[in-house]
């Protein structure tokens, strides 16, 4: 019996596909299921081909798939583009007044006059809601649960809009009930229906706020723009000052300034913006100013394919900027990790007084997952060594662990930060003795930190026929592939070494784990196998078997399953 249900909505940009998809995801969650969803869109505002797709399950689900059980085709080319993904027995909802669809073997067609019914309900703009009603019927769902979602989504709209949408949904539901039988029953509910549906970007924003974020300066760039949007909409409730800078260089300099003056600060960007910010990372490094930088990777180089995902900037993020200074790079792989690791990033930045990069990618940023709630109790705040006020503060005082006490400029407290090499009081100093002392002081922080890198995540049995290695958005598809295989082939033991701390690199633990492995498979979203290269640099271990994808799409569990079977 199938325990994963895959739906996909396709059409032109500007048709409200994302909102419609989001409503259905919420409907699924309130019905007691778990969901993962994702939107694909080209870099334009109207036209093109947009899709929203999701996977629903009674079990925990970690990734979307590359197959469809119910396709909602708002235009003809949607069918053309996604025909190959349809499972046997899948269904297609479409408007026969818009286009005619010939029969497809093994596929159920659901012709529903969406526009006509929408007009009946009050306005043709509600065609999508009609489709939602149909989707609810076809998945044997409850209309009142859909209505509860509609009520919340349209809460700030006029009464007649909400009523109109209720009517539209009912018309779609009733029409389908009249003409068709459901596709199948989704498996029995598993949870109470009270779960969040949230993407990595918003989870990052929440993690930052929970950690005491006070200042953010974000320039819009796919795929992190929704961090800016969310923070802007919630400045008040979050207690933050948010600025949209003139460029990314300004943004990160503002954040460094704000941090120097004493508040936790954040910036977020993608590859091009990160390139602009890189000199300032170096500034934060030498001035020992905390700052958290969210780097959402997308497919490059340069402008690349702006709205598509990749993990091509791994080595770049790991080594960016001139000079040597403590570099900390975390790589959360899903919304849950985004929340907790972002919160922790602020502690690391302030304790080690250095920039921290939170490295994600478009799939992590924008895919939504259902989860219970974020445990605020797990968020701890550590502002590191704050020194006693002194008239002239020795900001860069030599220390055994490399960490000098910090102070903020204030009445009676002179604090100097300096991008030049400097002495303990922040005055420029080029002498040999001082230079060596300050370099060693800064780099000592790495030695201090390395001992504190948390234990790695190894998913699956300790002993396995195959150990998969990956980071970031490959985690979800890998877990899905492994769980699917364990049902199909219980004899096959596969485990997954998930790297979400990239620098400093937990070399000892990784070496030890990989030396025990029978076979190893590296999976990443780039051409050069950058994670593999980094791993080899840190441990000396070269992973021969690699599954690399660089077409702008995230991994699908199906292709991982195929590769695993090939190897073992």
């Amino acid at each position, binding site marked *: 019996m199938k325990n994963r249900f895959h739906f996909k909505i396709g059409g032109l940009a500007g048709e409200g596909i994302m909102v419609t998809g989001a409503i259905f995801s919420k409907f699924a969650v309130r019905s007691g299921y778990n969901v993962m969803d994702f939107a694909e869109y080209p870099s334009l505002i109207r036209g093109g081909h947009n899709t929203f797709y999701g996977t629903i399950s009674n079990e925990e689900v970690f990734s979307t798939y590359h197959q469809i059980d119910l396709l909602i085709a708002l235009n003809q080319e949607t069918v053309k583009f996604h025909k190959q993904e349809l499972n046997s027995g899948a269904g297609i909802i479409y408007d026969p007044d818009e286009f005619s669809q010939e029969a497809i073997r093994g596929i159920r067609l659901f012709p529903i006059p969406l526009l006509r019914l929408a007009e009946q309900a009050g306005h043709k703009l509600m065609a999508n809601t009609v489709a939602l009603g149909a989707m609810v019927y076809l998945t044997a769902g409850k209309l009142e649960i859909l209505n509860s979602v509609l009520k919340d989504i349209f809460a700030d709209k006029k009464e007649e809009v909400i009523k109109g949408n209720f009517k539209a949904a009912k018309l779609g539901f009733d029409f389908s009930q009249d003409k068709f039988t459901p596709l199948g029953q989704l498996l029995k509910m598993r949870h109470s229906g009270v*779960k969040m549906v949230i993407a990595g970007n918003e989870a990052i924003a929440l993690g930052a706020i929970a950690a005491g974020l006070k200042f953010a300066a974000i320039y819009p760039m796919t795929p992190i723009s929704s961090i800016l949007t969310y923070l802007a909409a919630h400045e008040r409730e979050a207690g933050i000052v948010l600025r949209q800078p003139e460029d990314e260089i300004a943004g990160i*300099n503002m954040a460094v*300034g704000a941090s*120097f003056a004493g508040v936790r600060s954040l910036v977020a960007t993608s590859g091009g913006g990160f390139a602009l910010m890189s000199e300032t990372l170096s500034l934060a490094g030498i001035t020992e100013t905390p700052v958290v930088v969210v780097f959402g990777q997308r497919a490059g180089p340069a402008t690349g394919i702006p709205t598509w995902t990749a993990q091509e900037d791994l080595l770049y993020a790991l080594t960016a900027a001139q000079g040597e200074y403590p570099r900390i790079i975390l790589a959360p792989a899903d919304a849950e990790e985004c929340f907790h690791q972002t919160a922790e990033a602020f502690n690391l930045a302030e304790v080690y007084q250095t920039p921290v990069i939170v490295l994600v990618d478009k799939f992590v940023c924008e895919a939504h997952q259902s989860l219970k709630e974020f445990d605020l109790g797990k968020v701890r705040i550590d502002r590191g060594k704050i020194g006693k006020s002194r008239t002239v503060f020795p900001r860069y005082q030599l220390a055994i662990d490399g960490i000098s006490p910090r102070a903020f*400029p204030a009445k009676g407290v002179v604090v100097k930060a*300096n991008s030049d090499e400097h002495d303990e009081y*922040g005055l420029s100093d080029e002498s040999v003795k001082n230079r060596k002392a300050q370099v060693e002081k800064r780099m000592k922080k790495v030695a201090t930190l390395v001992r504190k890198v948390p234990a790695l995540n190894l998913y699956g049995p300790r002993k396995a026929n195959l150990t998969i290695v990956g980071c970031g958005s490959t985690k979800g598809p890998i877990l899905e592939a492994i769980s699917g295989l364990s049902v199909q082939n219980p004899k096959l033991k596969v485990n997954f070494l998930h790297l979400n701390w990239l620098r400093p690199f937990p070399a000892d633990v990784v070496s030890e784990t990989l030396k025990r492995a029978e076979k190893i498979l590296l999976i990443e979203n780039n051409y050069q196998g950058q994670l593999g290269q980094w791993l080899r640099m840190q441990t000396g271990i070269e992973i021969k078997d690699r599954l690399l994808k660089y077409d702008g799409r995230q991994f699908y569990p199906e292709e991982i399953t195929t590769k695993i079977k090939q190897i073992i």
Partner: protein
Amino acid sequence: MTVKDYETGVTPNWCPGCGNFGLWQALKQAVAELGLDPGEIVIVAGIGCHGHINNFTQVSSFEGLHGRPIPLATGIKSANHDLKVIVSTGDGDCLGEGGNHFIHASRRNHDITVLIHNNASYSLTTGQSSPTSPAGYKSKSTPYGKTEEALNPLALALSAGATFVSRGFVGDVPHLTDLMKAAIQHPGFAVVDILQPCVVFNKEFTFEYYRQRVYKLERTSTERSLALKEVLARNDKIGLGIFYQSKEPSYEEKVQLTKQKALVNQPLKNYNWRKLSNEFY
């Protein structure tokens, strides 16, 4: 407070006769007369001969990257608007590398003071031409004469929206001191273009050259377009004083959250979790 209270004791390494000495004297004098606490003053400098000012001046400071003191300064101000934030920047630092930031900070009317150490030269890198060197100017990078015309920093500041636009000259320290005081006290974005001869690399714009051309402005305009006209006037004279000043709400005044208390003094946990997470359910 006296001038000595604002000195680190490190002997300035500017060349003998450098215009920066006059500028530095005026700055120390200005903050002493205003009675400002050294910790509460933050001088944010870029990179150039001007940048070294932080090594000699006993105030809080941040020497940042070339061209980037302005955004750094506005970030500091956002975090703690009780601090008196003064940007020390050069003509190359401010108008070349950092031009974009100068324009936008002017527009936003941040309550900071920008002192442009304008010597029309990139002196620290041993003498290339800069955005304010004139056409024909001979330098290491323009040995046959600079092609393009000089940028007019005050015209740029005025058209970008700065609310205090002025010029001073290091050859008249008392006048410059008063100008700096007015700029620091101005509750908005204050620009002071400071003519500063570079005795080693700029053989054209010498003290003598300036002395023959400077004149004191008779009055300050409150009409932006008139001030712009004055600043763009093509004659051999160079006006000193406040060309334009207006009273408009600064950026910081408009931020609701920090109206009562500086951001840095607000509690770390200052959020409404229910309102923040509600939309995800």
